[in-house]
């Protein structure tokens, strides 16, 4: 799916090595499109069902419509962005500890 | 016959020693030494059961009644020491047959066993006698023969080590005899029981305090209390393997016994702790010994030397137990006398097996031995775990009582120190295990397992390490009894 990229400020640790021998996506595009569509359907169904069914939350925040869907989406978005930032802080070359 | 057992215990090895020199034949001399050890061990077992059943034994040498004659007086404390010494001696003598043939010139083997028997006799004598001057005499007998035994080591440095030990041992013995002399000058008696009666009347006399100081330093030197231990590592390192095992398990133990006898029975716990503040002297030294010597042991590359430093640290545990000035503390100390004899005996004998096969006990030379000498190294591992204080070994029982004693006094930092230093012990034992099991064996030589003649005595002590680690009732029972006697809580 995505090209190998590294955060801008860090030298790619594999610089100087030959790039990994990775081929194209292993799942044929036709299939991945079908899977994506199916997944989209699931999301829509979950939302619709959520409105139809009687959702009785236990936590006050659950009063917010579609709270779980929003929380899941935003939470993971935040998680990924923070992790990318974390990488700048903690990532070291693979042989960092090798001289111990 | 049986009433003579207390003295026969000492006399039999003493008489057999010159016979060794007369017969000259190595195997015959060995047989005499084995006979002497076995007799002593048998008698010690008989004595300890008698003492535990019916109280202290007293024997007047030549029927001269004390305090003028020499009395042999055996209670639970020294009966216990007699068992330790003769038990280790028996295990070592069986180990020595093959080991000594390899490490000592054939022409000197008979002399070796003569010195061995003299040393045994001296150590047993110190333990058995009830007369302070007699203590000095036997101390000299055991020390002089010990110098000779150490000097028989293969390494040229053994001679130098023995010489240094001789100087230090003589200084120690001199201090002790000065102390004895000063006591005699003040009280006019040499009998221990008699001294114990008369000393409270002269507590205030300065001479007695000086005598106490001389005796203390003399004993510290003989038992290798830090910082007076400097003679010990070389002596243990360069002595023949069997001698190291014997000395490490007995000589310092008997010196600790001397300390206990002088300061608890003769001077009395009240004088030692209330007047002389012995605990304040012993505790810092014990803690320093445990820490600094464990640390030094971690840095050693010669495993015999490593264990020698570990011995000094372990003596620190005994002294720590004594410094608690309580029955539990003394129980821990007396218990550790026995337990440490078992573990160090087993460890030094396992090292003797290694030396027998590969001629070196350097840690690098032991690489990969776990596969080549599995029984030997397994013995070392069990002995090492016992040294660390892993449950189901005797080491754990000792540490347990020591920690209980520390907590009983409310000194929990000391309990923590005991635990931390156990981890330090793990570190130095681990270095050997790591070399033996995790490094590759250098493929350029053939090495086989040590012969059964060495393995059987080694494993006998290993098994005792585990046995008394699981069933500690007997050892703890005797140690408690001894501690009560020493604290004056029981006759």
């Amino acid at each position: 799916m995505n090209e190998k990229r590294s955060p801008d400020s860090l030298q790619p640790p594999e610089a100087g090595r030959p790039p990994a021998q990775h081929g194209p996506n292993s799942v044929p595009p036709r299939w991945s499109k079908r899977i994506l569509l199916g997944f989209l359907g699931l999301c829509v169904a979950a939302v619709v069902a959520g409105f139809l069914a009687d959702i009785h939350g236990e936590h006050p925040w659950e009063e917010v419509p579609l709270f779980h869907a929003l929380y899941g989406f935003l939470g993971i978005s935040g998680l990924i962005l923070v992790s990318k930032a974390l990488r700048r802080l903690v990532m070291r070359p693979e042989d960092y500890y090798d001289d111990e | 016959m049986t009433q003579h057992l207390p003295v026969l215990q000492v006399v039999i090895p003493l008489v057999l020693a010159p016979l060794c020199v007369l017969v000259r034949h190595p195997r015959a001399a060995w047989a005499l030494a084995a006979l002497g050890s076995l007799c002593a061990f048998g008698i010690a077992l008989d004595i300890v059961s008698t003492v535990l059943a019916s109280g202290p034994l007293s024997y007047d040498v030549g029927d001269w009644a004390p305090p003028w004659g020499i009395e042999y007086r055996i209670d639970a404390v020294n009966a216990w020491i007699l068992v330790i010494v003769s038990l280790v001696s028996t295990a070592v003598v069986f180990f020595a047959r093959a080991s000594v043939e390899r490490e000592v010139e054939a022409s000197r083997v008979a002399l070796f066993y003569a010195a061995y028997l003299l040393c045994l006799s001296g150590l047993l004598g110190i333990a058995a006698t009830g007369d302070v001057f007699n203590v000095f005499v036997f101390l000299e007998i055991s020390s002089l023969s010990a110098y000779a035994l150490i000097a028989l080591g293969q390494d040229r440095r053994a001679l130098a080590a023995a010489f240094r030990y001789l100087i230090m041992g003589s200084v120690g013995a001199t201090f002790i005899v000065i102390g004895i002399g000063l006591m005699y000058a003040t009280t006019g008696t040499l009998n221990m029981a008699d001294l114990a009666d008369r000393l409270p009347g002269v507590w205030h006399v300065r001479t007695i305090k000086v005598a106490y100081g001389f005796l203390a330093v003399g004993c510290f030197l003989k038992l290798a209390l830090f910082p007076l231990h400097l003679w010990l590592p070389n002596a243990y390192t360069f002595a023949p393997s069997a001698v190291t095992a014997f000395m490490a398990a007995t000589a310092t133990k008997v010196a600790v016994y001397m300390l206990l006898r002088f300061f608890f029975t003769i001077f009395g716990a009240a004088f030692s702790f209330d007047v002389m503040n012995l605990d304040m002297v012993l505790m810092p030294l014990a803690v320093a010994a445990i820490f600094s010597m464990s640390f030094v042991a971690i840095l050693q590359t010669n495993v015999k030397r490593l264990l020698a430093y570990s011995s000094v640290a372990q003596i620190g545990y005994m002294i720590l137990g004594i410094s608690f000035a309580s029955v539990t503390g003394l129980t821990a100390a007396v218990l550790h006398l026995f337990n440490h004899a078992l573990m160090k005996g087993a460890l030094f004998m396992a090292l003797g097996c290694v030396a027998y096969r590969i001629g070196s006990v350097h840690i690098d030379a032991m690489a990969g031995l776990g596969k080549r000498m599995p029984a030997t190294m397994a013995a070392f591992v069990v002995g090492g775990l016992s040294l660390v204080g892993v449950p189901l070994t005797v080491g754990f029982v000792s540490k347990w009582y020591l920690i209980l004693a520390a907590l009983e006094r409310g000194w929990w930092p000391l309990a923590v120190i005991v635990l931390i230093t156990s981890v330090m012990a793990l570190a130095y034992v681990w270095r050997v295990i790591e070399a033996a099991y995790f490094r590759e064996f250098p493929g350029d030589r053939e090495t086989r397992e040590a012969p059964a003649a060495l393995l059987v005595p080694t494993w006998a002590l290993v098994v005792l390490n585990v046995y008394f680690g699981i069933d500690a009732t007997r050892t703890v029972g005797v140690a408690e009894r001894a501690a009560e006697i020493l604290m004056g809580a029981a006759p």
Partner: protein
Amino acid sequence: MTSSLPPFLVFFVGALLAAVTRGTVRKVLLVLVPVAGALNVWGVEEGYAWQLEFLGYVLEPVRADRLSLLFGYLFHLAAFIAVVYSLHLKKAENATVQHVAALVYAGSALGAVFAGDFISLFVFWELLAVSSAFLIWSRRGPGSARAGMRYLVVQVVSGVALLAGALMRVHETGTLSFGFVGLDGLSGWLIFLAIGVKAAFPLLHSWLIDAYPEGTPTGTVFLSAFTTKVAVYALARGFPETEILVYAGAAMACFPIFYAVIENDLRRTLAYSMINQIGFMVCGIGVGSALAINGAVAHAFNDVLFKGLLFMSMGAVMHMTGKTKASDLGGLYKTMPFTAVLCMIGAASISAVPLFNGFVSKSMIMSALIDGGYMWIWPVMLFASAGVVEHAGIKIPFFAFFAQDSGIRTREPPRNMLAAMTVAAIACVAIGVRPGLLYGLLPYAVDYHPYDASHVLTQIQLLAFAIGAIVVFQLLKIYPAEIRAVNLDADWFYRRAGARLVRRTGDAVAQAGVALRSAAAGVARPMYEGAFRAHGPHGPLARSWPAGSMVLWVAIMLAAFLLFQFL
């Protein structure tokens, strides 16, 4: 029933036999041990105890109640699965060492959960440490040797802390019995710390991240099942309703998920995931209500199954391809379809998809948080459960089996591996579909119904949109790429900072030594020489000094002793 044997005994005897048998005989034996053990433990009833006296204290090496029995059943199941998984091992893979160590390890875990007193617990605690270290060393790489050593040191220190705490407790309370401990006083904290190390509390966790990925493919499956679960058990027994655990658990559930996003080694990703899951259990124990404790131990039970399944699937990949890094893998579904499906079942379970076992236990903890009034912890844990989807639910199967085609063409793993994974997968689904199977074993009576429309729908929404976010980030190509790299964690403090400190201190001491040497003169000199001989490795330099310095020490001692008395 009193005819049962102590549960650990079956495994220890099995280990002895495994050490002396070879080939098919050993394989049969290995499978029989957990089966025999399970039959044995099935006969053990509440109140079964086995006591002995040691040093004047009553020890209870075996004491069964509902809590220990649950863990007892679990460990037998885990041992059975992991043993089947490791049957194929050959001599070249250190099979004997691994098999024997694994059985001792499983036996020690059983011993620990049935231990009725601190001394027995301590014994099994240390046995766990030592036996499991062999599963790491057996991989025989240079990295494994060092990681195994670091692991062992940490575990042994944990044991020492446990013993220290236990001894102080004996002194305070006069009993060795292992029951509720609580955090009053130093002894409670020491025991807490000891368990905390094994449970991988934040900042005490790095041994797990460091060591588990260094184990053998089969060894890590054992490792994932026992050590941390013993710690969860010990917390549930000793520290229920200890509030600090709620916050510690929340921290544990959250911080690893960030690391898991950027970790390249998939087994290390699973190690982070493990801490995250333990976070849920610790949190539940901290809440301490019957529902929360039930949820925590049920989640421990399920975690062993699904985390084991995930570790097994990654172990299978590693066994067949020799690789575990996401950047090296991809496209394996073509040649390992069964493994891929089994891995996805594990991923669904850990993500708490309804009808899989993670759902039925995690929702208990979530409900208990609200019942317990932890309104601000609940969203945190909800975030953590969404995070699980990211690393364990999607990342693991995606990068190993799909993603870009690595060009690796291999085969399915050996049949025993597939069989073990299948058993675990069936268990995951069975408990997910019929939660009553597990609820019946829990320590407290259960009145909880995970499958109501509200629960199921909200969970599906959460998961679907969490995955949606990942898909969007992938499509926009801003999802963090897999990079061969090391990410710093708390182990940096002892692997780097500590090492530097030691080196610098060493240099400083050496310099001080030089300074002292040049300054030393007169009386100071022999004393310094004596000290040098005492502490340095022996050198032939100062051979003539010692006798002199020794006598000097004697003189000093005597003088000090006498002065001490007369001043």
